[in-house]
């Protein structure tokens, strides 16, 4: 009987070791050095990997471009909202000057946490809702603008007249991008068919890839998609020789031969103002939007793919939208 007890104990030890290892490994925390030296610290909580070439990378890149920041700490991979909430609360408790909750799904948690830390500034995106709290700033992207530009370019490049779009869930900047893309394509060239497939998941890479297969099977020769699960879809596009339009981050690395252009989020355009304001005692309470006009959205072309006439169409669309001549319709 004693032996059994010891074995059970040994089993628990092994299990504890396994759980200990995973506790250290789950999610990845990383500190990003910056050039500032005035003690201003920013924490980011993001749902996917900080180098996902999509949503989470956009905020990490944006914060990395800020000036006057001494340290940045990132907790990524918090696709479980409760984990994110714990990280947000921990950062606030540790006295970070700005805690960024980068995910619309974190709104409910932030609404509960922010009032407990009235001296800490929080930023939440993508959303326009600050919950009426003076220490919460909201940020979002007018991604329909870049979507419209991409759609106009895609419509001029397709040979089959069919374009495929892969979306996650029809919310936030993902929906804006898809709506803008559809409008850009259909308003630029008559008779274009844009098939949209929301797979109802931000993380199902396999399903996104299969959705891309479906688009190709239905005749699409141009594809686009938004959110971090599109990394599988770009492989399908490459396999079938379809062109790809990216968004959120520059996605050329996913397909150097197929990515025509990417709409890139430059969150630093709004975050720099937040940082400056916080240093002067303004903790927030307002909503901010990055647009083509204010430089928060940028269209980055892949020089490795000849977009031909489409590039000029895209550049003209950027000018027209920035000048207010074109309604993206989203």
């Amino acid at each position, binding site marked *: 009987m004693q032996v*059994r007890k010891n*074995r*059970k104990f*040994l*089993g*628990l030890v*092994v*299990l504890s070791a*396994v*759980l200990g*290892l*995973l*506790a250290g*490994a*789950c*999610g*990845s925390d*990383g500190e990003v050095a910056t050039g500032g030296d005035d003690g201003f610290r920013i924490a980011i909580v993001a749902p*996917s*990997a900080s*180098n*996902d*070439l999509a949503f989470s*990378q956009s905020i990490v890149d944006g914060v990395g471009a800020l000036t006057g920041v001494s340290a940045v700490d990132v907790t990524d*991979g918090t*696709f479980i909202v409760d984990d994110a909430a714990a990280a947000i609360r921990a950062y606030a408790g540790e006295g970070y000057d700005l805690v960024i909750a980068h995910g619309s799904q974190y709104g409910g948690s932030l609404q509960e946490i922010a009032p407990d830390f009235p001296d800490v500034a929080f930023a939440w995106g993508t959303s326009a809702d600050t919950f009426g709290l003076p220490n919460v700033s909201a940020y979002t992207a007018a991604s329909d603008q870049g979507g419209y530009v991409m759609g106009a370019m895609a419509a001029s490049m397709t040979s089959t007249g069919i374009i*495929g779009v892969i979306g996650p*869930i*029809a919310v936030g900047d993902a929906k804006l991008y898809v709506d803008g893309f559809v409008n850009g394509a259909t308003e630029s060239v008559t008779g274009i068919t844009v*098939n*949209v*497939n*929301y*797979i*109802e*998941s931000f*993380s*199902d*890479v*396999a*399903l996104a*890839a*299969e*959705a891309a*297969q*479906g*688009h190709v*099977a*239905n005749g699409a020769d141009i594809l686009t998609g938004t959110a*971090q*699960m599109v*990394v*599988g879809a*770009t*492989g399908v596009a*490459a*396999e079938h020789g379809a062109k790809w339009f990216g968004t959120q981050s520059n996605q050329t*690395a*996913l*397909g150097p031969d197929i990515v025509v252009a990417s709409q890139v989020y430059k969150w630093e355009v709004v975050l720099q103002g937040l940082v400056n304001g916080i240093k002067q005692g303004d903790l927030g309470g307002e909503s901010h939007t990055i647009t083509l006009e204010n430089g928060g959205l940028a269209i980055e072309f892949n020089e490795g793919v000849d977009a031909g006439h489409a590039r000029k169409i895209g550049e003209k669309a950027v000018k027209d939208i920035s000048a207010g001549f074109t309604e993206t319709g989203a």
Partner: protein
Amino acid sequence: MNEFFTVASLVFVVGSGIRLATPFLLAGLGETIGQRSGVLNLGVDGVMLLGAFGAYWTILETRSPIAGILVGIAVGLVMGLIYGVITVSLRAEQGISGIGIFLFGLGISDLLFQKKVGTPMPIRGFGDLHLPLLADIPKVGEMFFQHSVLVYIAFLLVPVVAFFLNHTTFGLNVRAVGENPAAADSLGVSVLRVRYTTILLANGLAGLAGAVLAAELGIFQQNLTNGQGFIAIALVYFGAWRPIGVMGGALLFGMVSATVLQWKTLGLVSGAASSLTAMAPAVLTILALVAISRTVGQPAALTRPFDRGQ
């Protein structure tokens, strides 16, 4: 709905369903072997993730899909050894241990990915293998005979596993250990050896399932499997612990997923209906699972550690 019922559309749905079913099938076959010997492994998804990363990283470094697949299997075997020590030798509770293995795989695969790779870089897998003559059969060839070699291997494993479980001495021992390990032990069957072997086979197949996923998608990402390992476990129950049944469950899940995808692509569902249809594969599987579980009993010694002294 007429757009859906075209030959081209149906050909896509069948081909897509087969592709989607493959990782579930491989992991489910492995778990079937394990559970028939009385060992439940809730950590399948974690093993798949580790196998996927191992394969992805190997292919990225060596550009050899074969090496990647072998590493994926090897990673699964290592995890199987660990799980065997925990659950067979140390007789830890299988449910909790499996969850630990899952979380371990989830965390370590992401950590390794961040440290070894960082930004997702595409890899090239095997590509489609068009089976001579068969692939040229109009429509049928497109549906069934223009897939990756890994898909064919997965489906060929169904009769192999069925034969192993039902027509070999070792398979008989596996079933005996899963039903009544004490009786099997009294007849001279080494319960420990049988269970270690089945755990290794199960985890090796889980590692292979993850490797197939990474190789076919040509990418790795945090939590790449997105819970596929848990669905594979459910499919074992769905399939009543029989390889053919597991294959049926995997194909049902894959086909329903592919059908929903095609409906959405053709614009046949939108808005709230889109969210509802996305749940269809899981809902149908659960309903079938409930119906089947009422008629078929699980291996009697499933989840029970074997203690020769008791």
